[in-house]
């Protein structure tokens, strides 16, 4: 639209480009930019690029899902996992492991667990034809606690090997096991982001209030249901491929609101770009900080996210 928007977009794109180049050359072995592009290093480059793609998809998906969730709940500090997607995914994966399913099936089990927990949250929160915001938050919390309880119970009574590795995976990893699976998830997430963007105007109005939005001609309950479905699909797909990566969906949109403002038409693209760059950088950190050991990326985002969150919360309190 105007100059500031163009300038911000350009800066964000440059940051993303920088992150991509950095992630491509850094690794257990650092390979200079001139060499990584050579034919000999093609395998390594492809490996790193697929990881970069997953990081970008995960970041943008979580940011868009977070924004949608924040608009539905009228709370700028809501997380995309608020509806129980993460613990649901965990439970699905744990159950599958105990039942002896191979690693190939884990993403599907996680996806099914995620979707089931969202449906459960939805059914508990639903009042007639409406989904009141408060009930949604509370039932999300309750379902998450119940599922986490079940996970701990199952892990403690079963002596199954591999559950340890599972917990590790749940804290997030951007390792790409299967390129085909990566493409399916990417397609779902990109379509989801596009769908959320289409509702920019509706979300602008809804962040003032549901009834306010209705008075502006928005079919609030329908839009809420669509966004609810889309965010669930995005987070469930992402959890199934890269585990639970906290704070990205909260911190990045929030920071971007400070920079580009709360208008969803600019907020969504800006947050997607920023979150993509942020995830690529975090992943580079997780691979290189204690190389050859890889730290779960959720640990990195939490380490950065928690202090930022506290600062945001405190400044928010001072304003209101």
């Amino acid at each position, binding site marked *: 639209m105007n100059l500031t928007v163009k300038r911000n977009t350009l800066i964000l794109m440059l940051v993303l480009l920088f992150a991509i180049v950095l992630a491509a050359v850094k690794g257990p072995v650092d390979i200079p930019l001139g060499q990584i592009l050579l034919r000999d290093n093609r395998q390594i480059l492809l490996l790193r690029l697929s990881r970069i793609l997953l990081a970008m998809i995960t970041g943008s998906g979580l940011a868009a899902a977070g924004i949608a969730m924040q608009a539905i709940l009228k709370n700028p500090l809501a997380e995309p996992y608020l509806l129980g997607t993460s613990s649901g995914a965990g439970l699905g994966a744990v159950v599958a492991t105990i039942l002896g399913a191979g690693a190939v099936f884990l993403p599907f089990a996680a996806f099914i667990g995620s979707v089931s927990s969202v449906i459960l949250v939805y059914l508990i929160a639903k009042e007639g034809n409406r989904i009141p915001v408060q009930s949604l938050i509370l039932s999300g919390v309750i379902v998450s606690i119940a599922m986490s309880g079940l996970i701990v119970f199952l892990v403690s009574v079963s002596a199954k090997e591999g559950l340890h590795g599972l917990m590790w995976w749940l804290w997030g990893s951007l390792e790409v096991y299967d390129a085909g699976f990566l493409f399916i998830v990417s397609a779902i997430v990109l379509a989801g982001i596009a769908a959320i963007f289409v509702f920019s105007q509706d979300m602008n109005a809804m*962040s003032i209030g549901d009834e306010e939005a209705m008075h502006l001609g928005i079919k609030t309950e329908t839009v809420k249901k669509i966004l609810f479905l889309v965010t669930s699909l995005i987070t469930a797909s992402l959890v199934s491929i890269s585990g639970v990566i906290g704070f990205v969906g909260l911190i990045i949109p929030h920071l971007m609101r400070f920079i580009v*403002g709360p208008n969803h038409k600019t907020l969504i693209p800006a947050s997607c770009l920023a979150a993509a760059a942020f995830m690529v950088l975090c992943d580079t950190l997780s691979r290189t900080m204690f190389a050859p050991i890889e730290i779960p990326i959720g640990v990195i985002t939490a380490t950065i996210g928690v202090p930022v969150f506290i600062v945001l919360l405190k400044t928010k309190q001072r304003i209101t």
Partner: protein
Amino acid sequence: MDILLEANNISGGYDEEMIIRDFSLRLERGEFLGIIGPNGSGKSTLLRLLTRILVPRIGNISLGGEDIARMDRKELSRKLAFVSQNTFVNFSFSVWEMVLMGRIPHLARLQSETKKDFMIAEKALSLTDTLHLKNRKIDELSAGERQRVILAKALAQEPSLLFLDEPTAHLDIGHQIQALDLVKKMNIENGITVVIVLHDLNLAAEYCDRIILLEKGRTFAEGRPEEVLSYQNIEAVYKTVVVVNKNPVNSKPHVVLVPGGEMHVN
């Protein structure tokens, strides 16, 4: 008579509960209608029914001769706007962005505002004396300023009918008069029909052409302020003793509260 809004024997409320019972209204174009009544008498519910936030269980409502239940939500929002009493906003939209939201009913999804929309929004800002706040954030404004911006947003919808639910609830007396003077000006100069819920009986007496007094979801009295605001009506509905005088300036009814009134009467 040019009837803009007509409600025929509507009953309705939330879920099973019938809050409004057998309510009828014929609202003339250009009218300034006040709705008063004690807490829980159904004033806000009535506004929700008339603006299709709630759908009446029985009866029908028509706007310009068209059944509002059959109208598209967006089409409806081009004709009627709503100003609520709670103007608090959790997100830091700029005043300009807020007022432009009033153009949403006139835009297709993903369509950007045109020059015409900007002009209408700017006019709404200057009418409500908030043009100087254009670049400020909505959550940094005072309650009075915020109320005027919300009103500007409603005006940007270019409605023929404006609903207001206790717009003065959080304002001091100066801002109350300022806000209502503004609404009156829109009513007279721009021909916008107004339906307003007011708690303050004297404000209702001063501004409204006609008043409906609600009791337990039914119309208890209806008519010009001096007809409705009699001490008999008020005492019967509000269960409190009052004296009704006349405003010495314009001889509109003026309700005076009598604390501990029962004692004086007995």
